[in-house]
């Protein structure tokens, strides 16, 4: 017999499959609209998945660098503040020592010497500045104090120059104390790290080398000049007033000369600060542009999704209406 009938199951089967397919699409669109992201990202991206992964990685690393750059800026800022105080102390000592002339009395010399001592102590404590419990001028050693206390250094200096009577001898002894490699400054005075300088990464491929420690020649010269001024006023030493006057005048000259090298050091740190700032700006700009690129990859356009949702909704309603109609369209209904 030729096929003159069509099975009921065909209609049911088709209706069922169509309805379930439409409902699946509806739920996917609803999820995309509410979350703003494409639901199956792998299918949406296809072969672009590694690009998304690398964008995510860059964003994560940029955020981390942004944070660590803040810390590095703070460190450099602290250095600048400390050096500002060192310089102001240096000029205070210079002013005091410059008042000593050939006509100065013991009292004048003593006054100048006490100013020199207080500025020496202020410079030492300035170079021992700590930021968040970490020392700033100690190189890679963040725990120890970079310089021994002023009392210890001055006591050792006094012990070194006892018995010397002429100005040039004392100056030469101070030169040896401060500047000789392996000399007393490097063994007793400076307690920080001598291996290398602080290095901080400011971006994925850029490193700033913070090459400033408390044993920098600029600081040594300043301390040496101030120590000379202090020793000149030391009553425990057997020196005549001429020698003392000469020593303090020599100290004043040396301090004037140290101004230039201190300014140079401040300039170096200023350059590093600018480097970090520029890296920070660049990082912020990159974060914005990579963020936009990432959004373009993963976001679902809400307008397009809403339009498709409307269409699918209408489609589902039509299917429901058709299913209801077709179920009533059977001969058995009419034979009742």
């Amino acid at each position, binding site marked *: 017999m030729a096929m003159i009938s069509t099975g009921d199951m065909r209609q049911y089967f088709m209706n069922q499959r169509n309805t379930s397919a439409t409902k699946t699409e509806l739920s996917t669109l609803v999820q995309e609209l509410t979350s703003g992201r494409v639901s199956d990202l792998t299918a949406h991206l296809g072969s672009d998945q590694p690009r998304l992964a690398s964008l995510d990685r860059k964003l994560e*690393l940029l955020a981390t660098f942004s944070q660590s750059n803040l810390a590095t800026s703070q460190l450099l800022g602290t250095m600048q503040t400390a050096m500002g105080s060192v310089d102001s102390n240096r000029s205070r000592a210079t002013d005091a020592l410059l008042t000593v002339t050939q006509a100065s009395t013991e009292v004048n010399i003593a006054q100048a010497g006490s100013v020199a001592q207080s500025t020496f102590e202020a410079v030492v404590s300035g170079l021992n500045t700590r930021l968040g419990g970490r020392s700033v001028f100690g*190189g*890679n050693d963040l725990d120890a104090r970079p310089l021994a206390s002023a009392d210890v250094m001055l006591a050792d200096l006094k012990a070194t120059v006892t018995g010397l009577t002429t100005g040039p001898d004392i100056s030469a002894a101070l030169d040896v104390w401060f500047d000789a490699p392996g000399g007393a400054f490097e063994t007793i005075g400076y307690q920080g790290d001598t291996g290398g300088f602080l*290095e901080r990464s400011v971006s994925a491929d850029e490193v700033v080398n913070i090459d400033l420690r408390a044993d920098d020649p600029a600081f040594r010269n300043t301390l040496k000049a101030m120590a000379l001024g202090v020793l000149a006023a030391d009553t425990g030493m057997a020196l005549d007033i001429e020698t003392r006057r000469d020593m303090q005048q020599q100290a004043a000259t040396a301090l004037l000369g140290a101004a230039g090298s201190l300014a140079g050091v401040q300039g170096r740190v200023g350059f590093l600060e600018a480097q970090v700032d520029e890296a920070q700006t660049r990082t912020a700009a990159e974060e914005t542009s990579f963020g936009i690129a990432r959004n373009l990859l993963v976001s679902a356009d809400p307008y397009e999704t809403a339009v498709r949702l409307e269409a699918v909704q209408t489609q589902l309603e039509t299917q429901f209406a058709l299913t209801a109609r077709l179920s009533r369209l059977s001969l058995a209904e009419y*034979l009742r």
Partner: protein
Amino acid sequence: MSISNSLNNAMSGMNVASRMAEIVSSNVANSLTEGYGRRSLGAQSGGLGGVEVGSVTRFVDRGVLADRRVADGRLGGFEFLVSTMNRVEDAVGRAGESGSISSRIVAVEAALIDAAADPSSVSRLASLSDRMTDLTDGLYTASKEVQQLRVEADTSISDQIQLLNKSLEQVDSLNDDIQRSIATGNDPSSLMDQRQVVIDKISEIVPVREIDRGRGQIALMTPTGATLLDGQPAVFGFVQNSVITPDMTLASGGLSGITINGAPIATDGLGKLTGGTLGAAFQARDVELVNAQEGLDAIAADLIERFQSPTVDPTLAAGQAGLLTDSGTAFDPLNITGLSQRIALNAAVDPAQGGVLTNFRDGINATAPGSSGDSSLLQSLRFALDEPSASGTDPTQQSAASRASNFESGIGAQRLNYDAELSFSTARWEGLKEAEAAGGVDTDYEMQMLLRVEQSFAANARVIQTVNTLMQRLMEI
């Protein structure tokens, strides 16, 4: 006499009408049954007058049925593969989601940057140690999940083989029943319905084609040419492994293949039984999941190698284990299988194993704490991760994070491939199923038949009434 002949004819007519009503009722009752072949009654005119009941014809479109069975197998197979690859994607991590292997590598990189910004901070070193442990844990968990999926595939193969054997025996016994039923003149249609349902179950596992052997018997063969049932059912065997480790493969003898009637079926364990869920399970167990495991092991090998060089950590001797180890020992290029389950943080930096956190900053073999602000080793560790380098198993030069994300996207791409195949198979299957369903019971048609049966029955009853009147008349003479 012709009057008694008329009576006989009318009686036979009513008999056929009632048999037709029985067929109609059976069809209508089974209008929603899967695997039911629409029956129809063939009536023929009787040799001595009247009408005789012919045979009951069972309608089945064999071509569509055979194609639909093949489509069933393909659909089931791809469904299994898509769900397996989905679970591998879950274990390994998807694009854009946190918790993936590549995002854990990035977290380690970020922790290295943080620690380098303040190398004296023990809490930052502790957080670096945590991120590295997260990474090794992530690789371990992913590998465990992959092996678990292999166990599930293995179990699925074993269950399917058992079901296959049982179903073939059922078909064999139904064959005998049908033969006997035909021989004794009964209607074998409902037995044939049952047999069709059982063969449908078989063809999900392995797609089969029916071959008619006469007298209601059928033989079963796969489209690729393997005989499952021809007079005698083939008996399949399989040895299940409840624990599977990465080194166990079919080639190494750790896993078993299918045996047919006691002999191994082929070197790949599957032979000609491809195309259904059985083939998909073998594909998953022996190809896809093995590739996934190899990818994870390659990532682990790459990570261990990057940290093991003395140029990265000057305190290391050549050949000594670096920051990441192969369960405590150095990397061995000959022993990469299963490395992702053995990768571990070096004991020298793990306080739980007697190490000190400051060795992250000072070096694995550092004997005393170094300068607390020295970030050079931490920086060189980060550059080691970022450096594009070739790993032993993969010659392309890429950074650690991009090697991991390429692996993840490879898994995703394979899943998309199977998704595409699945949607094609689904479309084809839907079309064939629809065509098959179109040949089923149409209740409108059966209602029309019923009207005709009613009419025919009423007409025959009227004939009997009239003949009765005639005979009465005769009696009144």
